[in-house]
């Protein structure tokens, strides 16, 4: 039995031809650093729950990924963030949905798991719970980046398509019409 951490930063229309090398290096460096941090926690006999919480928190703090800072925009030009966490030892779980004032949604999900008898909170109730539990709260524009906003504008200009997080990236890079989300290269 070998302690291990695995992370993901989303899936989609990611191709070598569409990604410039500098941006690719930034993605690889971020993934590498976050995996390494997770390994450090496990190596110090930290729990799997702590390792995944910290890994996802770091992913939320990185504007390259669609969670926390760098989250995509809704049709209304707002953010709606969701997160969940589950402990395999006890089958305890915590989740929040539809929030935009909690800096780290995964910490809120973890708090739901640890400090409430419930599994899921949404919207205003989730934010009230997070605030009462002392979690860091921010203004919604904390999560906004210009790149994501440009993706929204292009999606709305191109037949109002709904895009997966990384499908929107290629659309922005190529300056073309939004990709067909059913287009697959598997």
């Amino acid at each position: 039995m070998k302690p291990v951490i695995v992370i993901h930063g989303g899936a989609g229309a990611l191709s070598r031809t569409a990604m410039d090398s500098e941006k690719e290096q930034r993605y690889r460096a971020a993934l590498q650093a976050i995996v390494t941090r997770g390994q450090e926690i496990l190596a110090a006999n930290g729990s799997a729950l702590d390792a995944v919480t910290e890994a996802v928190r770091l992913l939320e703090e990185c504007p390259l990924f669609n969670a926390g800072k760098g989250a995509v925009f809704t049709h209304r030009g707002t953010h709606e963030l969701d997160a969940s966490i589950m402990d395999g030892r006890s089958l305890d779980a915590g989740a929040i949905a539809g929030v935009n004032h909690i800096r780290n949604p995964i910490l809120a999900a973890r708090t739901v798991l640890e400090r409430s008898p419930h599994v899921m909170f949404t919207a205003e109730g989730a934010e009230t719970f997070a605030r009462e539990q002392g979690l860091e709260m921010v203004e919604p524009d904390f999560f906004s980046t210009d790149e994501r906003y440009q993706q929204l504008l292009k999606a709305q200009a191109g037949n109002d398509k709904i895009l997966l997080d990384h499908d929107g990236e290629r659309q922005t890079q190529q300056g073309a019409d939004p990709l067909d989300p059913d287009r697959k290269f598997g």
Partner: protein
Amino acid sequence: TVGAVALDAAGNLAAATSTGGMTNKRAGRVGDSPIIGAGCYANNRTVAVSCTGTGEVFMRTVAAYDVSALMEYANLPLSQAADKVVMEKVLALGGSGGLIAVDHQGNIALPFNSEGMYRGYGYVGKEAVVGIYR
């Protein structure tokens, strides 16, 4: 969407998922990420799973839990269970995306049916490995 799964030295599994949703989504639309069993699941007896992709399909297939169920009831090893969910069941409904998973023995799986998936893993004491494309 982002996620992490881990197995610790005590043999415990955990999974976590977080997302900003989909660009231009309708306000109030929720995907698989906060839904236990769809975008996130962990059970010490089987596996920890975090999913990413077209949320509606991962919800309808209860994708994360399905990996665990295939292992527990059909005795599939992790690699086969994860591939069956992503490359057959999700794809059959027109879903795009992937998942990461680790089982109670430390085996890992990172299948995806899309063009790429930002991913990485690291066993304690070994070098971290990251990937983007196929």
